[in-house]
Structure formats: C-alpha cells, structure tokens
C-alpha cells in the first residue's frame, strides 16, 4: 500500500472551502484580504479561490469586523451560505453585537422563520508570539450563547469534515482554527468528507481514565495516552470536536465506564469549557467517580508576548500527564 496523502491544517481549510463552493453556488466568502489580488488571505487559506470562483464569490472587505459579520448575516437571510473570515479571534470582539444579538437570536425571535446559516472562520492560539490581543481562546464566550454552534478541529481530516458540516448547517457556526499548528500535517480525508456536528469522537478506547479535550491539546494527549499505555494505564481519549452543543452522552457514558476524568484545554482555566464538562460529569456520572475530575488549562492571565512568559502561561503536556497520574492514585 502506498503512503496516505498528507495535508496541513491550512490545506484542509482550503479544501473544505473549495469543495463547499463547488457543491453550492450560494456559498460565498468574505473577509479582509481574502481575494487573490490581495494575497489570498493573510494565512493563505483562501489562496486560489477567487481565481477559481470569481471575486463576486470571494469578496475582500474593508477592515471592519462588524461589517463583515453584518453583511454575512444579511446575505444568509437572503438565501446565501456566507463564510466570513475573522483574521484573529480577538478581533471578533468588535462584532459581538452582530454575533450575539443577531446571528444567534434571529431564528428564535422570528419563531423559526429566519435561520442564519453563516459560518465564521477565525484563527487564534498562543505560542507564536502574537501577544495578548491576537492569541485568546474565546470559545467559551460563544458556547455561552444559545443559538451558536462552536467547532474546533484537532486533525486536518477533521478540519475538512467539520468545516464542510458548518457551512451546510442552518445555524450560525463559529469554526476556530489553531494558528500554531496550521502547518502540521495529517492524513488527507477523501473528497466530500463531512463530520456531524454535536457529536464527540471517542478517538481511543480505554478503561482507566477518560481524557476529554479538543483542538491543539489533542496532539499532546495522543502521545501521552500512548506512553501511559506502555505502563499499563489505559486512557480513553475523547475529542469533543463540537464545543456547543456539547455531546453530554458520549462524555458521561465514558466516565461511567472509567470512573476517572481529566479535561484539558488551551483556554484560560476559569469559567471555561472545562468547568462545563466537569459540571455535567458530576451531574450525570457522580456515582461512578473514583476520583475528583481534574482540569488542565492555561493560566488565568493575559497571553504574554515574551517567549518565556508565553510558555509559562500555556498549559503543558506534562500537566495533562500529571493530572492523569493523580486521578489514578485513587483506587
């Protein structure tokens, strides 16, 4: 058998957009500098797409996140499936009114008559010295808004399948891309690969402890689970894939089996997705727990610019391993 084709995360995003645009003429892209005349996007995700599909469907916008999201919402109400690019996740703060008060609420406030099928792609993550205003993981903010769907892939193949699913979904989806691992490669998916939203993925089965995560830490966890298996610690690994709506059943069923759980994310520790997952475990699997559920996260601090401090801020793979071992101390 020949080696599988490998693609980067960036190539995965491009593949999903390309396939979505080929499949549906109502899919349009808008964002800052995304057209080929402007360089095909600061991170080259949209490179080649305006040449292929025309500048009408791949629209470079002014530097106004409010206008980008507002225009996307309006176009979606008129029957299109816009995919808006927000260059850095921190910049979406400028468009919170559009996201929270309009995109997430119009379906409910119109009695189901006006769905908002937009996808917002955005990039973030600490570790490349972009500083506090370009690095935050804000997924919990949006997961706290009913009506929004929040999705974070952990492999290039999942990135293709989940982004396609977001674009085809009739609800507003926030699709978060990790900036640090954008050139990391993984196996390419087949064409037209789609992954259902709202379903977590039991990526590795195990009996001793469940590790729940999403996005970049999954890359640490895969290695840790393999290492620990050599010592006879059997780790079940769950990749949430969709943060909201959260797949409670998959989490709870796993923890009922293992009796131990660790939740890991890159976002700051407090008031985050980890807290929500821990709450649901204690609500629905308390009687099965052999040990307190532990959280691993980055520090409650602004992402620092200095390299040394940025590394100190970030969660570490060794923190995840230590948390797993700590839950194993309880018999």
């Amino acid at each position: 058998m020949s080696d599988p084709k490998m693609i980067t995360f960036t190539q995965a995003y491009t593949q999903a957009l390309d396939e979505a645009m080929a499949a549906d003429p109502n899919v349009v892209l808008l964002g800052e500098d995304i057209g080929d005349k402007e360089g095909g996007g600061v991170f080259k995700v949209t490179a080649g797409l305006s040449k292929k599909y025309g500048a009408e469907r791949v629209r470079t916008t002014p530097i106004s996140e409010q206008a980008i999201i507002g225009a996307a919402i309006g176009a979606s109400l008129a029957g299109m499936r816009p995919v808006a690019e927000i260059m850095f996740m921190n910049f979406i703060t400028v468009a919170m009114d559009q996201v929270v008060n309009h995109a997430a609420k119009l379906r409910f406030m119109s009695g189901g008559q006006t769905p908002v099928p937009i996808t917002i792609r955005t990039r973030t993550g600490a570790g490349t010295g972009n500083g506090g205003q370009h690095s935050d993981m804000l997924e919990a903010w949006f997961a706290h808004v009913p009506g929004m769907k929040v999705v974070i892939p952990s492999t290039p193949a999942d990135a293709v399948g989940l982004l396609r699913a977001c674009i085809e979904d009739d609800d507003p989806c926030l699709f978060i891309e990790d900036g640090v691992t954008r050139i990391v490669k993984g196996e390419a998916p087949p064409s037209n690969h789609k992954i259902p939203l709202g379903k977590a993925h039991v990526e590795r089965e195990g009996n001793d402890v469940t590790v729940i995560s999403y996005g970049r830490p999954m890359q640490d966890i895969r290695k840790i689970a393999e290492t620990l298996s050599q010592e006879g610690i059997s780790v079940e690994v769950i990749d949430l894939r969709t943060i909201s709506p959260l797949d409670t059943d998959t989490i709870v069923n796993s923890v009922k089996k293992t009796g131990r759980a660790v939740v890991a994310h890159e976002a700051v520790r407090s008031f985050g997705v980890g807290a929500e997952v821990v709450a649901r475990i204690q609500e629905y699997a308390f009687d099965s727990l052999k040990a307190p559920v532990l959280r691993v996260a980055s520090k409650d601090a602004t992402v620092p610019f200095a390299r040394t401090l940025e590394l100190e801020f970030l969660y570490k793979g060794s923190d995840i391993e230590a948390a797993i071992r700590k839950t194993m101390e309880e018999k």
Partner: protein
Amino acid sequence: MAEAVANDPIVKVREQVINSGVATSDELDAIVAQFEKEFDEAVEFAKNSPFPELSEVTTDMYGVA
C-alpha cells in the same frame, strides 16, 4: 428644543427624499400607511393569540441541534 425638532433626522431625510425626486410625498405617505396597517394587524394578531406553550421556551434555538 425647537432647534432640535427642526433638525429631526427623520423629518429631514423625508424632505431630502422628496426634494431629490426619489419619491413624492404621496408615495411616502402610502408606504407609511402600508406599514401602519401591517403593525396594526400584527398587534391584533398578537392580542388574539394565546401565549406560547411553555415547552416552546427552547424551540427554534437551533435547526437541528
């Protein structure tokens, strides 16, 4: 106050629309009358409708959750 009223942007934009020949005063009156009728009908509809079922509190949050 009188100055503020004279500068009311809603009044001013109406004047501008008429003066620039985009629409006549009668046409604008007809648009307003049409919307007033729609609003009145919506109010009547709401007054004559039962309150929503309590189970509808989470209906239409998502298409397919």
